[in-house]
């Protein structure tokens, strides 16, 4: 306490910290306001249309015409949830960044707000992750409506579900940060196709990882995809199906978060400050 009175600098540092925290919260406030007041319809359409059709076609149509086993829908549910979570968080970071850096320049007002540039990047990830979590959760009532006989989940195991949602959405947001800052605006549509298509189909969304043991090379290949860990994590939380071991899931998500988070923040700073 006496040190504070003597130099005053810890007090100044505290004041600066408060200013930065307030600015961070205000940026989040703006994004939440826009999500709820101005973009709710478009956000829901963007996030949920794809999973609705996936659930309908794979969970209802295919089993009913005999092209898939009855109950495939229940197997599919964790995968669709993971896919929605990851894609929503990824796209909600990447797309706005591309547009704001290149076309609307909206990012400039944030970069001149009183907080470090890296905090602006983290804030983007955080809000996109939140949108991802919201979209992921909405899959449950949707699946209950769409799947024949509703949803049959085992659990849920909250101790697994919550950390998977939390870290999975953040890791996906970080991937979006890399994509949104590394790709030049004129290539973004190509980049999305090239990145998203393999991401969707190698992420263990439509098949459990364990069942790939007969296709060993592919099973190993899917481990590169962060979505695999989210899918398997949700499979562990919501079903009693065999899944990738918990330790591997934790490791995969941690590596994805650290690698993409660090890389994305660096790229963001490079775009923000010449």
């Amino acid at each position, binding site marked *: 306490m006496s040190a504070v009175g003597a130099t005053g600098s810890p007090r100044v540092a505290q004041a600066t910290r408060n200013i930065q925290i307030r600015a961070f919260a205000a940026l989040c406030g703006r994004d939440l306001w826009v999500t709820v007041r101005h973009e709710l319809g478009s956000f829901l359409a963007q996030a949920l249309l794809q999973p609705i059709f996936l659930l309908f076609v794979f969970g209802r149509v295919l089993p009913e015409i005999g092209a898939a086993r009855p109950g495939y829908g229940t197997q599919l549910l964790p995968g669709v949830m993971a896919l929605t979570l990851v894609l929503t968080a990824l796209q909600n970071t990447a797309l706005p960044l591309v547009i704001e850096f290149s076309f*609307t320049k909206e990012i400039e007002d944030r970069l001149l707000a009183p907080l470090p540039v890296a905090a602006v990047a983290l804030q983007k990830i955080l809000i996109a992750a939140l949108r991802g979590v919201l979209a992921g959760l909405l899959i449950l009532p949707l699946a209950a409506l769409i799947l024949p006989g509703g949803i049959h989940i085992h659990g849920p195991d909250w101790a697994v579900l919550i950390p998977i949602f939390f870290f999975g959405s953040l890791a996906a947001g970080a991937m979006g940060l890399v994509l949104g800052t590394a790709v030049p605006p004129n290539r973004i549509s190509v980049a999305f196709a090239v990145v998203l298509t393999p991401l969707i189909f190698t992420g263990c969304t439509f098949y459990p990882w364990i069942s790939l043991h007969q296709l060993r090379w592919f099973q190993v290949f899917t481990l590169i995809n962060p979505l695999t860990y989210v899918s398997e994590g949700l499979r562990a939380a919501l079903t009693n199906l065999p899944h990738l071991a918990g330790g591997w899931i934790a490791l995969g998500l941690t590596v994805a978060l650290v690698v993409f988070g660090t890389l994305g923040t660096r790229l963001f700073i490079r775009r923000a400050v010449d």
Partner: protein
Amino acid sequence: MAVVRVEDLHKRYQADGPEAVAGIDFEVREGEIFGLLGPNGAGKTTTIGTITTRVRPTSGRVLVDGVDVGEDPVSAKLRIASVPQLSNLDRALTALENLTFHASYFGAPRRERRERARELLGRFGLGGRENDHVNNYSGGMAQRLMIARALMHQPRLLILDEPTTGLDPQSRLFLWDTMVDLRERGTTLILTTHDMIEADRLCDRIAIIDGGKIIALDTPTRLRRLLPAEHGVEVTVAANADPSPAFTAVSGTERTEARPAGDGRWRVRLYGEDDGRNSGLPEQALSAAQSGGLELIELKRLEGSLEDVFVHLTGRELRGADGARVSGRWS
């Protein structure tokens, strides 16, 4: 007191590339409008980028209100506001929300930001349009809204990058009045421009930048004095033939030039120092025209423009300077 101090600023965007800014020093004093004048690519935008924390200098430093921008960008950002060339308004928001959210980033309490936003919207002629989405705003309105937004957190320093480029004449005049008004309210302004008239009319002091260096820095009046004496008057008269013989009697002229101005008119320039004693050049020119039976269309004093100053200092036209000649010089 200096609000901005730029010390030996250098910026190179690529390690082996040319220097966009090649050693710039200047101070901006409290309460003045400071102009950075120069052709495109001269280093103006880079210079203000270093003040707004968006460009990291290769060497040298920038102090805003005594705060080193490189060392403490957050404190610097609290003191500055920037209005860019092109709209960077938040298109997801209404005009009012653009202002109130901006203020919230700077920690303004809810009530205060609403009140201030409404006051500024009114001041900038945007009252009644506050709930419009900014997509529906014209260029001039967007520009005014960006200035209003910049003022929401009451910055010590307002930086405007080419504020009137692309605006219609009415919006331009409005903006000029606004800038003068802001100065009167105590805000310090930096503006970049390649418009000589704008710089001349608004700025208290002007730094002329070319090739990443300041080649002159002074008040507009003193900058004009850099020109070799080219004082005198220009008379436009209705005449079918060269009317210059009518003006031979005018005393104190060093040189007379006459050119047809089309449409049955001639423009006669009488160069000479008008010391204001006896009968001055304008009065003499007027009576010479009358006694020569020439109908007077226009009479004006010749005064060097900033454009002339730029040409004099660089040997190039300002407006034409952004073309091949400049890039040729630098590459």
